[in-house]
């Protein structure tokens, strides 16, 4: 019986030949090739920094609108606040595939997105004489600040809160929250701003050089892909699974705005942005680096990404209802996200580890 080449060996040969031949075309004419350094550069500038710049811009608009609502107390302005909360939230959710660096280590993530809301403490605070100064929220526990307390105040428990239901104290707290989210968004943007001293963008893009946290470019790209894998695990195994398994709508994260499906979709778009290296403008992403030597893998990642994002169209009711009435569809969503995760973890990551040598 002839010895059989194992799948691993075939893959190994394919990788070696693919990397060996990727620099030139069949006519021995040099072609433009994508280098890992370009992928790292464009991710840092065109995805991370661009996303955080947009976050700051949206948070500024949100704060202005909260100030306006505080004066007018109109339902129109409240509706604008709710929409701007969703717009700002959308940008934040699009950063969750690359939550590393200061946003993770300097308490910025829990500062803006902890959950659940500490309603008991919030009620006590609103009933107190505490003055909600600009910096008051800096010293409070994380479950009293950021997106979700603002969501709770803006939308109310049932999601249909009207302007007339607001107390003055709630509006004071809303103002403090708007200012806090705006200031924290600026801090997050600065942490990746190439013009700020000590910014993480320079640290990340100097991977492989002395002073960077990343000993190699490979490590920098591993960081990115591991983070992409992480949000797939969190959405499928945590954000969806926990309320679904418990059949408990109270475990839904964005329950007041009924925005969870949008949140999850934007989480997957965050993976997409990280892979394609673009956010508001085109960039050189991992897709181009992979595609030049392994078209089938690139196609597979793209197909799984699209499938994961599109799978949310199966859910036609708010997530809090879907965990009761559309369980089969939610399991299908989880399956698509898990398939994406498996490709990222089982194929893309090893491909980077084998192919990026510096």
């Amino acid at each position, binding site marked *: 019986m002839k010895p059989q*080449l194992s799948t*691993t*060996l075939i893959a*190994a*040969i394919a990788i*070696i030949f693919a990397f060996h031949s990727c620099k030139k075309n069949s006519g021995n004419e040099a072609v433009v090739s994508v280098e890992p350094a370009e992928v790292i550069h464009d991710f840092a500038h065109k995805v991370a920094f661009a996303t955080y710049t947009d976050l700051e811009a949206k948070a500024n608009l949100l704060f202005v609108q909260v100030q306006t609502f505080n004066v007018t107390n109109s339902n129109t302005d409240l509706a604008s606040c709710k929409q701007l909360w969703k717009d700002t939230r959308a940008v934040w959710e699009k950063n969750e595939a690359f939550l*590393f*660096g*200061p946003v*993770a*280590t*300097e*308490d910025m993530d*829990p500062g803006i997105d*902890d*959950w*659940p*809301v*500490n*309603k*008991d*403490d919030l009620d*006590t*605070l609103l009933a*107190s004489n505490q003055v909600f100064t600009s910096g008051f929220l800096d*010293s409070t*526990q*994380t*479950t*009293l600040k950021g997106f979700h307390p603002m969501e709770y105040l803006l939308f109310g428990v049932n999601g249909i809160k009207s302007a007339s239901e607001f107390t003055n104290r709630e509006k004071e707290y809303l103002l403090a929250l708007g200012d806090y989210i705006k200031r924290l968004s600026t801090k997050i943007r600065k942490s990746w701003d190439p013009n700020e001293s000590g910014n993480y963008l320079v640290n990340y893009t100097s991977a492989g050089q002395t002073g960077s*946290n*990343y*000993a*190699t470019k*490979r*490590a920098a790209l*591993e*960081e990115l892909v*591991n*983070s992409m894998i*992480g949000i797939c695990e969190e959405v499928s*195994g*945590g954000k969806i699974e*926990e309320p679904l398994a418990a059949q*408990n709508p*109270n*475990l839904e994260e964005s329950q007041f705005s009924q925005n969870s499906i949008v949140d999850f979709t934007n989480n997957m778009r965050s993976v997409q942005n990280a892979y394609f290296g673009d956010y508001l403008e085109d960039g050189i992403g991992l897709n181009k680096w992979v595609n030049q030597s392994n078209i089938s893998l690139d196609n597979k990642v793209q197909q799984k990404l699209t499938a994961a994002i599109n799978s949310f169209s199966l859910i036609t009711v708010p997530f809090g209802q879907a965990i009761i009435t559309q369980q089969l569809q939610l399991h299908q969503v989880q399956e698509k996200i898990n398939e994406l995760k498996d490709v990222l973890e089982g194929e893309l990551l090893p491909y980077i580890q084998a192919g990026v040598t510096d």
Partner: protein
Amino acid sequence: MRVTYGIAILCILVFAYGCRKYNELDEDTLDTRFSGGVNTAFDESSGAFSHAFPELSANDLAVHEVGDRHFEISFVTAPALIRPGLGPVYNNVSCASCHIADGRGKPALPGERLLSMLFRISIPGEDAHGGPVSVPGFGGQLQSNAVYGKALEGSVNISYTEEPVYFSDGQSISLRRPSYVVQNTYIPPPAGMLLSPRVAPPVFGLGLLQAIPESTILNWADEQDTDGDGISGKPNYVWNLRAGTSTLGRFGWKAGAPDLLQQTAGAYNEDMGITNPVFDQESSLGQSQFDGLNDEVEVSDSILKAVAFYTQTLSVPARRNIKDPVNVSGEKLFTQAGCNKCHKPSVRTAVDVSFRAVSNQLIFPYTDMLLHDMGTDLADNRPDFKANGLEWRTAPLWGIGLTQLVNGHSNFLHDGRARNLMEAILWHGGEAQAAKEFVRQLPKSDRDALLSFLASL
């Protein structure tokens, strides 16, 4: 065909070398990259401390993942539909808030709030089990936060004084000496209250440390320094709540907890104010902050065990660049300095037929799990069971080179005063005085080599 097979053989060699598994390695030439034996994670990104053991059964992995999720969740004030039970007094709202990315906390800078650091407190004497005596009105830990409407127990203002230390070649380094002032206490603390600062330690690899045979640790102990090498090594014996007797202490900066379940249960209770089957009374019991509620336990036995299991089954990051000549040279200097006498490079875990993942593994934790006199500069002057005010448990060194990447800082030692590894070395005293002096006498190239070796861990 021959060419094809030649390529195939070449590929096998290339990939087999790069992908050799721990169990396939010859122990005599064991690759020291495998810091956690088979439970080693090859990841140089910021998730390096957060990998589950690779060979867990599907069921064990599911328990690990449940524990992972509960390690992350934030508690809120009761009553609440979900996650109730925070406080009334507490240090932080979740496990992950202090053990960020399963890694190391850091001290507050002057004027900052304490985020991933706390203070153990006591009054002089021993309690009925030989442990620290709780402070009336405060307990055994200063909770620096409280739910709204309740008074926090107190806060601590940290300030630092810079002090130069000179190497023999004339170069110098500045060390920051911390001082702590307890303030804003809800009632006056008793005079002479003892204070012990503690940053949150990393939580990976703990299951392997728990699996080190007690006999091995005791064999390393040399409390009376009978071999005369200047290094003693003393086991701590601490009160084991479930056993109802004193047993060997392993976890915490002074080895004050006997096992991961008690360590986890204690953290829930003291750090977050979450009652559980091991500590079923609020930490504020008897104080004015106590809410008087006869709460059922706020974390179930099942979840408590899952979270403890999570910390038991986190892999150890692999060493990097082990064949780099500079690192090899640095490792020799580490031994010449005598650092290895306490920071024991390797040990074999016990055979455990009930949990194969931790059984019979050669690991490289760089600790002897024993207490050592670290000198007056590091002393907290607060006894903790058998540990006196000068003694600390040898901290494991595995993974320290990834601290900056994972946690965004390189603060070391129990109170995080050292801002980098060289500062940490130079704070050593007591039994480590000779080792420190050895390093202080080294030329810069050798000092750099030593640091490079440590960074590879």
